[in-house]
Every structure is written in structure tokens, then in C-alpha cells.
């Protein structure tokens, strides 16, 4: 094939991805340099939106709070996912994949439906309140279960837990059985084998999974709104509000670019960690 024909072929295949992914991202970046004056978007380039982010504690403060929230979500996911993945890994082969399927299946259930269910479980007239009052533990239903940071934390952890179990399990599965036998033959106790063989080999996949959950939680803007109420004002919601009531698309785009950079950094970190120790 000639050079020209190759170029033409590349152009044909690249046309749609470039025009529907790269160009929109360019438009997104470009918009972040525009500004709004009396409800009109003014197409002058400036860094004013970025300056606004760093000047206004309401913006960077919310980002920091959201990072902290997502950090805790990731930590919860890690603490739950690791023992679960380990348990599944230690099961006989026949049971292993069935259990894994059971854990992963909720990922395919509608996201909105899961939010709805969390609300109907935690809400004032929800299942938990009804049960607690029905059993006489509470005198009247409590509002303490929904519309606070804890509710957001619990819901995000429930949503993203399967995303962490899966990579942890896959990296445990990659631990060669021969290494475990060698360690046992050399007289190591199961705990020592776990500490010096299993854990180091499973670490990259675990870190990648946890960072993945972190990015997913960071970009979510519906969960905080649905289960967090007014106390769930996260960074994603700040971006979202610029496209609704606030009507400041350029500022929203700038805030989005910052989110994109943060997520890009986290994903790059995950990639570097999972590549470093791969055998």
C-alpha cells in the first residue's frame, strides 16, 4: 500500500473519533476561556474563570471537600473489597466464578434505580425507619439516615464496591500457585505467606481498583444530590449548577477542565502503579 493510500485509510478511520471526541474536548477547553456578560457568552479568551476558581474558596474548598469525601469512599471500598476478593479467591473453582458474578451483577443494574432504592431504604418513610419503629427501637422515624454526608458515603460505597472487588480478585488470581507452595514448603505460616507473597503481588491491582472507584465517585453529581440533599454539595454539583440555574457555561467548563486534570492525574497514577510490579 502506498503512503497516500495509508494516509487516506487512517483519515477515514480517524474521522469520527476525532470529530466526536477530540473536537468536543477542544470546544470544552476553548469554552473555559470565554466569559459570560449579562447572560450572553462573550468569546474573548482569558484566564478569568480559572482565576475565579483559585480566588473563591467556595470553589476550591468544595473540590477539597469532595476529594476528602471520595478518599473516604475509596477507603471503605478497599476495606470491604479486599477481604471479599480474598474470600472468593480461596473458594473452590466451581464456586469462585458464580460468587464473582453475584458481586459484579449489581454493576449492570440501573444506577438511578440503585439511588432510588437507597432513598427508599434510608428515607423518613423508608424501610429502615419502618423496621426500627416497628420493632420498637425508635419511637418515631428519624431523619438522621438520609440527606447527610454519611448517606452519600454509604451510597457511593455501595455503588462502586464491585468495581474494586473485580481488579483485586483478578490480581489475586494472577498470583502463581507455585509461589504459595514454595513459601509453605520453606516453612512459612499462612500469615507470613500472605504478608510477603500474596500482598505484594496483589497490591498493584488493588491500588488501581481503589483509584478507579475514586475517579468514579469524583465525577458523580447525581448521587450527592439525591441522597445528600443540601448537605451534599460536591464539586460535580457545582459544575452541574453552572449549566442550570447559574447559567455560566464558561465557568462550568473551566471547573470541568480542572476535574478532568485531577482525574487524569489519578488515572495516570493508577496506570503507573499497576505497570510497575506486573510480572
Amino acid at each position, binding site marked *: 500500500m502506498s503512503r497516500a493510500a495509508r494516509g487516506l485509510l487512517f483519515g477515514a478511520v480517524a474521522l469520527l473519533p476525532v470529530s466526536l*471526541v477530540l473536537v468536543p474536548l477542544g470546544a470544552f477547553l476553548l469554552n473555559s476561556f470565554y466569559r459570560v456578560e449579562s447572560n450572553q457568552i462573550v468569546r474573548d479568551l482569558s484566564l478569568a474563570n480559572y482565576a475565579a476558581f483559585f480566588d473563591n474558596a467556595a470553589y476550591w474548598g468544595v473540590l477539597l471537600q469532595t476529594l476528602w469525601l471520595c478518599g473516604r469512599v475509596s477507603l471503605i471500598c478497599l476495606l470491604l473489597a479486599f477481604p471479599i476478593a480474598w474470600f472468593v479467591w480461596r473458594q473452590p473453582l466451581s464456586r469462585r466464578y458464580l460468587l464473582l458474578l453475584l458481586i459484579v451483577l449489581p454493576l449492570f*443494574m440501573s444506577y438511578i434505580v440503585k439511588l432510588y*432504592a437507597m432513598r427508599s431504604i434510608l428515607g423518613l418513610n423508608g424501610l429502615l425507619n419502618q423496621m426500627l419503629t416497628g420493632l420498637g427501637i425508635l419511637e418515631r422515624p428519624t431523619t438522621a439516615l438520609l440527606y447527610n454526608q454519611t448517606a452519600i458515603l454509604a451510597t457511593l460505597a455501595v455503588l462502586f464496591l464491585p468495581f474494586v472487588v473485580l481488579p483485586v480478585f483478578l490480581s489475586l488470581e494472577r498470583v502463581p500457585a507455585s509461589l504459595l507452595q514454595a513459601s509453605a514448603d520453606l516453612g512459612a505460616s499462612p500469615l507470613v505467606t500472605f504478608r510477603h507473597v500474596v500482598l505484594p503481588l496483589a497490591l498493584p491491582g488493588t491500588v488501581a481498583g481503589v483509584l478507579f472507584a475514586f475517579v468514579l465517585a469524583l465525577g458523580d453529581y447525581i448521587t450527592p444530590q439525591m441522597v445528600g440533599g443540601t448537605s451534599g454539595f460536591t464539586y460535580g454539583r457545582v459544575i452541574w449548577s453552572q449549566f442550570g440555574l447559574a447559567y455560566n457555561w464558561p465557568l462550568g467548563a473551566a471547573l470541568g477542565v480542572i476535574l478532568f486534570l485531577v482525574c487524569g492525574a489519578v488515572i495516570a497514577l493508577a496506570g503507573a502503579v499497576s505497570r510497575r510490579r506486573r510480572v
Partner: protein
Amino acid sequence: MTTRGERLAMFASGLLLGAVLLVLYAPVAVGALFSVVRLQRGQILWDTASVQAYVHLLDNADILTALGTTALVAAVAVSAATVMALALALYVQSEGAFGRGFLELLVYLPFVMPPIVTGLSLLLFFSGLGLARDIATISIGHGVFVLAILYRTILVRLQSLPPSLAEASADLGATLGQTFRYVTLPYLRSALVTGALLALTLSFDETLITVFLAGDRMTLPLRLWAMMRVGFTPEINALITLVILASIGLAVGVAARLRGAGRLNV
């Protein structure tokens, strides 16, 4: 041989798994239960049990319209993305192709970026073009999003195609088109179906990107979200039960196809 400590760890982590599965499946159970019965002061009123809520769904024009939109979007987005993914995979696997890394970056980017970024960038792009938000814009958003999973599924399969098959076909005098039609395509068939099923499940549930691209249109998740803000009714529970059953059906279909065919290395 297992030690006491190990057995204890197994027991504790098994208990944890049980508890977590309970929480993960509570949504299905709760929705399904309250689509047929009512709850009052912690007492389930079994005598109110009925399937009326499901019947009422059929009268709800809003829901039926949303269902139609979702189906149309999924069909358009998934078929277009499948063709695109096939073309990309064939190109990337072809000899002397350049720009592989660049193309893969573009394919994976919308999948790993926060959906709010994907949604926003498409919104700004469409509004820059003066394109009104409708079924077409939603379909483009879904297509861009599911492309990664289709591409990955097809590429993995294509990489396992022995080059000797294509060579044999050429030796027997087949043209490139004939080799594609009679060798490559049948070999990729199962990967295409699996990928398309996965993509359909994703498109069916997609919310975070769709919000930005839908305008006044309502897909099923958007309609559900709107209904949720109003309150809880048996109809919503009936609807989410059906939605979950459909998603689980699709997912189990994918899982069954993957068994024996090797794991999906995404």
C-alpha cells in the same frame, strides 16, 4: 491444610461477603416487594398484594414514550458504534498501520473520563454547531461512550485470529473482501454479539452523560429520575423491577457467552 487463624479469617470474610451481597441486592428485593404489597408502620400488608401497578404502567404514556426513546437510542448508538469499533479494530490490527496509540486514546477517553466531562464537551460542541438536543445527540453520546467496550471486545478476538487463515484464503484466490466476508467476520461473530450486548446494557442505563444531551427528551433513566423526585409509588417500584430484570437478563446473557470463551480482559 488450614490453620485456625486462616479458618477464622475465612469465616469473617465470608460473613462480610454475605452482608455485602445483602446490601447490593436490597435494591432489587425492596423494589420487587413493594411493587406488589404496601408497607405500614413496619408491617407488610400482605392482603394488599396485587399486580395492578404493572398494569398501570401500560397506561402511562410518559413511560412508554421514554421506553421507546431508550430503545431507539440504544439501537442506533450500538449498531453505529459496532461498525465503528470493527473498522477501528481491523485498522489497528492491519500491517503497517500508524497512529494506533492515538486512535486507542480517543476510543478509551470517553470511557475513563468522568461522564460529566464527556457530557459537557459534547454539549458545548453541539451548541457550538447550533445542533438542537434530541434523539440524535443522545445517540452520539451513547455511541461515543460504548465504543470502548465494543472495540476492546472485538480487538481481543481479532488478535487471536491465526494469520494463517487469512493467508490460506488469499492462496485460494479470495479477494480481501471475500476473506473478510467468509473468514474474518464469522470468526468475530461471537465477539460482536457479546460486545453489542454489553454495550446495550450500558446504553440502557446511561444517565450521567445523557442528562446533558437530552434537552426535553426523556430516556427511561431520566424519566425514572424525574418520577423519583416526586415520591414513591407502586408504579415506580414496578418499573424499576422490570428495568432491573431486563438489565440482569442482559448481563447474565453476556456472562453465559463469556464462559469458556476466555475472560474479557478490559
